[in-house]
């Protein structure tokens, strides 16, 4: 397989993608996406993170042909996003999916299989295989309106990977799921990657994004604020330390816990040496010194904070 970054290896590409919604009686413009540049490489698991209203769902809806961009361009599997042929090798699970409630799980998947022009034999085989994979085989002939939220999500996952697509886009696939459901989604994402598919998903569950994604994009206020591997985004920098000590001394910092014999405080990384010396010289004992590195969450929060002046400027322009 060719290395990431080569043109032929890019399955999703967005260039200066901009989306302006018109809302309300006066059709007030609201910027959903503000010049987004993005490239997703073949075979990777790509996580999209950002606060509510960051533009994750807007990006996904444009890429899946549900919305049109106000300006800019995007390609999916090498074709313009608004060309229906770009979706032949695309599987998509929307956020909080809704399905035809008059159909059973099996009928629903059969319908979607037909939309992909899968032949009858392949449809039957894949449907049975997937229903068993997500533990829905027993409920295959039960109407969807009797399914629980988790079951709907599971059948939704099945329809997204039914035709073994090269690209799978999942919008908040873990939303509202119990731990078992989330584990299933995680497993399926990793199985899809192992099969060779590219998976692009958005999520608010940053621990999942961190553990599964090869690369992550941070979206804030409609624009890309960072993209790279988790390590690249977070870096190795130690931002603070947690010092656990005993003895009647005060090394400073913010107290986190106290269990009677020991106290734990958080300090700036630069204060660590001084704090340790203070404890030792005061007759106390250092029990533990833990470096605290940045997390995806802290990086995201920093980006949100940094975007505030830009946001104000953007609203001023409007």
């Amino acid at each position, binding site marked *: 397989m060719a290395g990431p970054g080569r043109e032929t290896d890019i399955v999703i590409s967005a260039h200066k993608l901009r989306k302006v919604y018109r809302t309300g009686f006066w059709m007030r413009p609201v910027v959903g996406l503000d010049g987004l540049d993005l490239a997703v490489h073949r075979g990777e698991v790509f996580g999209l993170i950002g606060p509510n209203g960051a533009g994750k769902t807007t990006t996904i809806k444009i890429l899946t042909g549900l919305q049109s961009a106000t300006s800019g361009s995007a390609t999916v599997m090498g074709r313009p996003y608004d060309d229906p042929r770009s979706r032949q090798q695309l599987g998509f699970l929307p956020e909080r999916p809704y399905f035809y409630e008059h159909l059973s799980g099996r009928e629903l998947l059969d319908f979607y299989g037909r*939309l992909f022009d899968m032949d009858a034999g392949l449809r039957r085989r894949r449907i049975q295989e997937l229903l068993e994979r997500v533990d829905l085989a027993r409920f295959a002939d039960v109407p969807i309106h009797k399914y629980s939220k988790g079951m709907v999500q599971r059948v939704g996952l099945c329809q997204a990977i039914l035709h073994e697509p090269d690209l799978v886009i999942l919008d908040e696939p873990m939303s509202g799921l119990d731990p078992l459901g989330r584990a299933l989604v995680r497993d399926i994402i990793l199985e899809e990657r192992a099969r060779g598919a590219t998976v692009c998903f958005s999520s608010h569950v940053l621990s999942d994004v961190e553990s599964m994604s090869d690369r992550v994009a941070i979206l804030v206020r409609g624009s890309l604020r960072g993209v790279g591997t988790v390590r690249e985004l977070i870096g190795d920098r130690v931002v603070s330390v947690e010092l656990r000590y005993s003895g009647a001394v005060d090394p400073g910092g913010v107290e986190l816990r106290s269990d009677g014999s020991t106290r734990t405080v958080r300090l700036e990384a630069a204060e660590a040496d001084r704090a340790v010396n203070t404890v030792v010289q005061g007759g106390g004992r250092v029990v533990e010194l833990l470096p605290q590195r940045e997390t995806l969450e802290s990086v995201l929060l920093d980006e949100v904070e940094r975007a505030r002046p830009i946001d104000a400027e953007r609203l001023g322009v409007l």
Partner: protein
Amino acid sequence: MGALSRLWALAANTFREAVRDRVLYSILFFAVGVLCLSLAVQEITIGDHEKVVRSVAQAAIDGFGSLIAMFLGVSLVYKEIERKTVYTVLSKPIPRWMFVLGKYAGLVLTLTVEIAILLVLYTGLMTAQQHFPPPVVFVSMLTLLAQLMLLTAWATLFSTFSTPTTAAAFTLAIFVIGHLADDIWLFGSQAQSVTVQQVARILYWLLPNFSLFSLRPEAVHELPIPWDRVAGVLAYGAAYTTAVLSLAVAVFQRRDLR
């Protein structure tokens, strides 16, 4: 073949959704009731009993067919957007024109089956009374279907951009005006003002003329089949329906699905 099988999948799903809707059965139940009632009416009628039965039956099939076309048509596309089921369909290799046409074809299939059921029942009732319906009755059902296809196209157009309530009001207006098209022409031709005459003419040519589709007098009085008129009306229906559906596709093509 790929496009056709996808179109068929969309149509079959729409048909399946309609036939699993209890409201459809309620309307059908009433239609069957009225058909059966037409037999009772002949008992209390003086004159040609068969004409009465044919007249009531024709009116019932026409009326209930229009009701189903409007009832299902006005929410055809809107419901998909409102329930967000459209997201998982249009994110597949389905062009928007195919989605609109597939939904429309499914509804036309539902109407065809509904008319066929009522026609079979009507034929059965008449045959039981030793009066097999004349051929013109069957031809009149064909023109009725063309009329319902046009009405459904209008309902589909309205459902691409408005709520079912608003779409129902628009479709009902088209239905009423469409049955008054000849009156609009007459009103225009008798008006003194040139402006009123021109407005009436423009309205007459723009809006559908549903009365053209009706072969009820021929069916009731067992007149010969007016083949020329039937051909003309079917061509008119096909052209007009294509135009309205094209407009529906154009509107839906531009619609953002939030």
